[in-house]
């Protein structure tokens, strides 16, 4: 039994009694525009009672659970309320899930990213559910005049067994809502879980498959105008002048102006990446009119000068350099190659790596590179804003509203309390939507127009805006002694404009002499989080290198990794190794068993890879065949340790998606530049994985344990790059060092 003190989470349990009963106005605004399903009609209660920020109970026992985090496809809108429902002890059939607005006084950490939603929401959500249940128990105790500890609950019903009394939650909700929140709350034992660990379908599924308005793109209010931006066609350029004579005269066009996104002296936070500080804006009545007017703009661009801005991020305050220049991929690659040869910052050193390399009988050295990647979420960047003199209403796709809130307040000159951010279901995020520039842009445009506007990027605007996965390089070196034993390991990572090295990750801790270094080159191309930042490159490089190293040492690639992990578990080197070697080994052993590793199938080429990031452990075996001289992925077997799996089928969906996405990026993902301009701005040139390229099967196996749950959105993505590379090696007989691996195929389209 776990007892938690509610005081630590007090702010989540504020009772805003004014909202009790009235909250549903907001809750069902979405349904106004579409036909409610029969269940929604019959079960709506007459009166709602709010037990805490997350939970409202209707007089008929129907329960509304607020899903605090923005939803971008990882299914938190289903799995987070499942955790509430579990501790509240209700029947999932009687639950309505609502998306919470951004409301930091009422909800914990409304941030979607870093695969942290479930991990960090676990305790607060359980506590919120258990708190509400306890209030209901106390309400029944008071009403029935019996001791609270004699009352039990099951599926939304309170029982007092000895007297035979029972009542639905709805009957006790009004009494419960008036009680004070108890100090100590008992959480369920894991073996008492009834909802967690069972598969529940996406709560928005019916709306998605019937085309109901769910996304920002679909949002509309009376008098709303459409806005589009025209940003410079290349990084390193800015607007010099705009001739809008023709565009202005086109039908439906209301205004054309230059918008300045941030104040010059604004100290940015880590999510304030604003690639183009000034952009031309066209506002009109319909999208088609605005698109056409945008094409009719005659804009002169000029080169930017070197500049800097101040950023206050997690690493404290720093000055960020934005160099002038029109960069190209060719120059990026030669600069990164030069970087690998130069000394870099030492991130970790164990033992005497230099000495060991000097004594080595053999040194194996390999260099890996990967290009910039565009996020390409299927919903292009967009945002609705209605800013008036004294308040702002924002409806948009945003992963990190807390950070954008600060920026909006500063830019609009409004107090935070007057800015209302509603969290739209996002048509994908992948890290890109953590950067709230589009919210600020929409708000600035609305303020200028004094009207509600929906800002919409075209696909080209979206793909050419920046906030990319950086381009990276890593050089790995391993020293072997005369007995072919691994005596030293060295990784030197570089990138534009950041390096990819996580110095304390495996194989750090498993090798006596270890050195990790990193250095980076400034750029005016903006970057941002992209599904497992840095890991999404370094895992592929590291796990490809370990595969080659195992082969050089004459070892099986899984056994070789297990040997290293055994060393890290029993006699770890150094202090800050950031992984649990036993759990790491656990997924490798599981994948070995499930894939029948070691059994060879004719013409099937297999690659293995394993990685730990975002608190979860993953091992993957990929099987491919060559058909018509092209690789076809037949199967991927994944073993995952993410602790307790809250919603198994949804977790498998997420795992499959990360694998498919990773294979796509490993095969085809690439954004190149010439004279500062991205060479691909739409899906005709930017090759994405499609149905034909997808693996024919994926098997996902979870390690069964009672560890608190960790995330899944990212962890399966990074290792697949190396599983692909290692399988391709088996098929082609040559190693793959440069992503994307199927460059020839991309050219063929």
């Amino acid at each position: 039994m776990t007892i938690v003190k509610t005081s630590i989470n007090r702010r989540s349990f504020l009772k805003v009694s004014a909202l009790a009963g009235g909250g549903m106005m907001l809750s069902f605004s979405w349904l106004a525009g579409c036909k409610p399903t029969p269940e929604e009609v019959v079960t709506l209660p007459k009166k709602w009672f709010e037990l805490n920020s997350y939970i409202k109970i209707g007089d008929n026992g129907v329960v509304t659970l607020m899903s605090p985090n923005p939803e971008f496809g990882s299914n938190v809108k289903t799995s987070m309320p499942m955790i509430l429902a579990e501790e509240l002890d209700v029947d999932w059939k009687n639950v309505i899930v609502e998306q919470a607005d951004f409301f930091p006084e009422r909800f914990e950490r409304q941030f979607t990213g870093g695969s942290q939603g479930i991990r960090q929401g676990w305790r607060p959500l359980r506590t919120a559910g258990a708190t509400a249940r306890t209030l209901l128990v106390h309400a029944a105790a008071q009403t029935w005049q019996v001791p609270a500890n004699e009352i039990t609950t099951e599926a939304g019903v309170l029982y007092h067994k000895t007297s035979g009394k029972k009542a639905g939650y709805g009957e006790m909700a009004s009494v419960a809502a008036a009680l004070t929140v108890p100090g100590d709350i008992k959480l369920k034992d894991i073996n008492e879980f009834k909802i967690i660990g069972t598969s529940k379908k996406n709560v928005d599924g019916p709306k998605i498959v019937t085309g109901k308005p769910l996304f920002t793109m679909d949002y509309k209010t009376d008098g709303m105008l459409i806005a589009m931006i025209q940003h410079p066609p290349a990084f390193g350029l800015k607007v010099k002048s705009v001739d809008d004579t023709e565009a202005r005269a086109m039908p439906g066009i209301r205004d054309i102006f230059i918008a300045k996104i941030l104040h010059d002296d604004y100290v940015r936070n880590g999510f304030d990446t604003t690639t183009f500080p000034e952009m031309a804006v066209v506002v009109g009545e319909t999208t088609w009119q605005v698109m056409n007017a945008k094409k009719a703009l005659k804009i002169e661009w000029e080169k930017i000068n070197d500049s800097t801005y101040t950023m206050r991020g997690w690493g404290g305050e720093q000055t960020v350099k934005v160099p002038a220049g029109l960069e190209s991929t060719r120059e990026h690659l030669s600069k990164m190659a030069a970087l690998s040869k130069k000394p870099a910052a030492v991130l970790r050193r164990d033992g005497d790596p230099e000495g060991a390399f000097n004594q080595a009988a053999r040194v194996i050295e390999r260099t890996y590179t990967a290009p910039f990647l565009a996020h390409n979420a299927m919903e292009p960047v967009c945002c609705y804003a209605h800013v008036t003199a004294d308040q702002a209403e924002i409806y948009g796709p945003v992963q990190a509203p807390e950070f954008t809130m600060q920026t909006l307040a500063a830019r609009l000159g409004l107090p935070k309390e007057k800015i209302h951010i509603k969290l739209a279901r996002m048509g994908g995020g992948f890290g890109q939507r953590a950067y709230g520039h589009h919210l600020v842009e929409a708000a600035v445009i609305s303020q200028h127009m004094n009207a509600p506007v929906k800002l919409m990027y075209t696909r080209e605007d979206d793909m050419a805006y920046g906030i990319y996965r950086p381009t990276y390089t890593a050089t790995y070196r391993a020293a072997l002694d005369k007995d072919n034993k691994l005596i030293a390991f060295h990784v030197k990572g570089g990138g534009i404009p950041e390096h990819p090295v996580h110095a304390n990750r495996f194989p750090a801790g498993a090798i006596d002499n270890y050195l990790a270094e990193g250095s980076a080159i400034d750029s005016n191309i903006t970057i941002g989080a992209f599904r497992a930042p840095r890991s999404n490159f370094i895992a592929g490089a590291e796990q490809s290198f370990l595969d080659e190293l195992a082969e050089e040492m004459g070892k099986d690639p899984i056994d070789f990794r297990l040997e290293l992990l055994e060393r890290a578990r029993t006699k770890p080197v150094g202090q800050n190794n950031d992984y649990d070697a036993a759990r790491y080994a656990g997924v490798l052993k599981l994948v070995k068993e499930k894939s029948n590793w070691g059994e060879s199938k004719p013409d099937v080429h297999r690659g293995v890879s394993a990685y730990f990031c975002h608190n979860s452990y993953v091992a993957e075996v990929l099987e491919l065949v060559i058909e018509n001289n092209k690789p076809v992925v037949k199967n991927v077997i994944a073993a995952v340790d993410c602790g307790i799996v809250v919603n198994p089928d949804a977790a498998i969906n997420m795992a499959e998606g990360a694998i498919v996405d990773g294979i796509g990026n490993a095969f085809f993902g690439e954004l190149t530049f010439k004279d500062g301009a991205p060479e691909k701005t739409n899906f005709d040139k930017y090759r994405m994985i499609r149905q034909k390229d997808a693996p024919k099967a994926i098997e996902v196996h979870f390690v069964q344990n009672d560890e608190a749950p960790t995330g899944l959105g990212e962890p399966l993505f990074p290792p697949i790059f190396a599983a692909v590379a290692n399988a391709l090696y088996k098929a082609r007989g040559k190693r793959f060092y440069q992503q994307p691996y199927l460059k020839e195929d991309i050219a063929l389209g």
Partner: protein
Amino acid sequence: MAVFNLNVNGKKQTVDVDPKTPVLWVLREHLNLVGTKYGCGIAQCGACTIHLDGNAVRSCALPVSAIGNKTITTIEGLAEKEDHPVQQAWIEHDVPQCGYCQAGQIMTAAALLKNNPNPSNEQIENAMNGNLCRCGTYLRIKAAIKTAAANS
């Protein structure tokens, strides 16, 4: 501007728009049918897929002037009770992640099954290859199409 009489989801609709306006924007902004999505505007992603006389087409690259008297079906009108076998199979397999591409996927799948009630894996892959899903739900899409084929 010009007036067009359209047949959308079995209803007569009249719009007065620039003849070059893609059907996508007519549906979304003039007829308030926002289930059909914008993803690329150049017929490369399939998010905007509708049926024209029962065939799957990309509405983003289809000017309204080209419709003539062909009938348009959107995701909203795929089945009167919103229970098309493909929609049901999508729920059964819990296909969507973010969901943005799914209306387009469903429309392409429904047209495929209409012309070929029992498609092979390869036929499914060919038919669905024009519909991108960045979330990577391709395996579930394929499985759901097979279920829908079996149930219809």
